[in-house]
């Protein structure tokens, strides 16, 4: 009976792994094998690494991909920073001082989940016309809508983190010792919800790197719109760049997980 269960378990794992790995391996295969000659080459990966100089040499074909890549990098940073600065203090404050507002905040944060991006763009069009006039037409201002898009996922991650600690007692203890709110946030709350913040950040990074619809419909250049354009002239590079973005996100997850872990698990409990 147990042997049968083990077999089923391995079959399930194998199917799931195949579901995830076959497309990725196909992408890798396509990125390494020249489509016409069938010759194995790492040229596409070399091009990804040197995309800056390739774009400089051939701006017509690769300029937008390079621009999109840079824009997405900036968007990732801006979105994560705004999300953390906006959500962590707000959610902490709601939990500590205005609990009656928590349902409302949750509803607002989860709302973007129910609105398709294509519908969102209809409303965002007029808003971004104003943004273009007040700020500029630069793609980096997409960070505002990206913060809205990541709200549901980031809220869930942070909410779980805050629920796992006795926020009220910790903050009151810190206050009684003389700490003010900024220090409480920085030295007490954030370190204790680090894993949750990292999770929220990763979700944000993944979402921003993969976002296409809004950027395309608002005529902005990000990584995905750049890949889309390049795919029409250089399919191998487009696929390689997509795979590289996925690997980057994966590596980022690993690095962030490493940072979110701490040395506190090294000593055994003695209580």
């Amino acid at each position: 009976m147990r042997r049968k269960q083990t077999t089923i378990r391995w079959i399930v794992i194998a199917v799931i792994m195949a579901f995830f790995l076959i497309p990725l391996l196909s992408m890798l295969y396509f990125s390494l094998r020249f489509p016409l000659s069938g010759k194995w080459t790492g040229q596409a990966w070399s091009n990804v690494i040197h995309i800056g100089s390739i774009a400089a040499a051939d701006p017509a074909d690769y300029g937008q991909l390079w621009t999109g890549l840079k824009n997405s990098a900036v968007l990732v940073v801006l979105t994560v920073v705004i999300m953390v600065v906006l959500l962590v203090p707000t959610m902490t404050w709601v939990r500590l001082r205005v609990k009656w507002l928590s349902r409302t905040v949750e509803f607002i944060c989860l709302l973007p989940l129910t609105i398709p991006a294509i519908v969102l763009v209809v409303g965002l069009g007029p808003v971004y016309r104003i943004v273009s006039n007040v700020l500029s037409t630069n793609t980096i201002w997409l960070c505002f809508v990206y913060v809205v898009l990541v709200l549901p996922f980031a809220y869930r991650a942070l909410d779980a983190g805050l629920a796992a600690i006795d926020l009220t007692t910790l903050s009151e203890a810190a206050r009684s010792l003389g700490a003010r709110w900024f220090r409480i946030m920085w030295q007490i709350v954030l370190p204790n919800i680090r894993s949750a913040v990292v999770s929220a950040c990763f979700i944000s990074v993944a979402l921003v790197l993969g976002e296409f619809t809004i950027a395309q419909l608002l005529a902005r250049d990000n990584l995905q719109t750049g890949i889309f354009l390049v795919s029409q002239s250089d399919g191998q590079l487009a696929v390689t760049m997509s795979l590289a973005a996925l690997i980057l996100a994966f590596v980022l997850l690993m690095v962030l997980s490493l940072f979110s872990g701490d040395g506190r698990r090294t000593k055994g409990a003695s209580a």
Partner: protein
Amino acid sequence: MSTARMDTAGVGTVAGVAPVHGVLVELNDLRRSFGTVRALDGMDLTINPGELVVLLGPSGCGKTTALRVLAGLEDADSGRITVDGRDISSVPTSKRDMGMVFQAYSLFPHMTALQNVEFGLTLRGKGSAERRRIAGNYLELVGLSEQAGRYARQLSGGQQQRVALARALAIEPKVLLLDEPLSALDAKVRVQLRDEIRRIQLELGITTLFVTHDQEEALAVADRVGVMWEGRIQQIASPAELYTAPVNKFVAEFVGLSNPLPGTASEGAATVLGQRVPLLPGSPPSGSVTVLVRPEAVTLVPGPDSAAGSDVRPGSVTGTIVGTSFLGSTGRAQVRLADGTLIIAQIASADVAVLRVGETVDVRLEQVPALAVASMASRGSL
């Protein structure tokens, strides 16, 4: 109470932890409501320099609210708080200079015990070496020097509360506030830690307010105990006075056990169960009363139909043993009188095995002053 005070043998003062200058704390006419519930209803309290006052009362009586208002964690609707003569009613928590130990474990999970104790010192601008020295001294004071490098989850509940105490004391606060710090601990650790808290408090001479709903804990550690009910202190007195001379029925029944027995008062005494019992001041001078008799003031003598029974006093009543409990150093017996009244008597632990359920006993009341309340009014007011 005296046990805790004397239980300092073998514990020396830790070098570098100097006694503090105790301050006078005054709460005047504090009021605080939560919706329609009055948590504090004109509460007055004075804590003398270096004194440990315990606020004792049932859940919802307002004791924790009073402590939180003093700490600044809760705003009072009205009233005045002065510490060392200075009005701190509108001073924020972070500037009140009070150390606090919470009911829930409050150590910062991402910091070691040493870092927890250092936290408040960092906020006071102490240098790294000085912080380490002071924090080390206070950890030594609570007997946890060897656990300095451990995180909260690597410490037992009792150890966590000791670190929390060290953390609260390390900032050398004017006032120490203890919000049911022992309630999450098991019985043995509770007793050990409460004695330790008292020992440290006496050693440092710090003015302390301790909140608990555990009367044994309160009587054991306090200089004075304030019994709270409905947002006000009903009586504040030394543990002995509180126990022997309660001012009202609530205090008498909340602190220790009492047998409410019907009687008739006259000339400073009451006739209860056919016997004269002296009454405490504050008791009604005459008329029908309910006399609150402590179990230790009830003596049981084997009754007339018992084999051992021969010493039956005229005027006393007989009853039947309906249950006995062995409590270690003492015992308790429940006696049902002929009219159905149930009386609890404190007996020697050796007698628990001697008295048998169903046995008839002679119930006698000692000549210990007891509180009486008017029979009808008491039902309405308390």
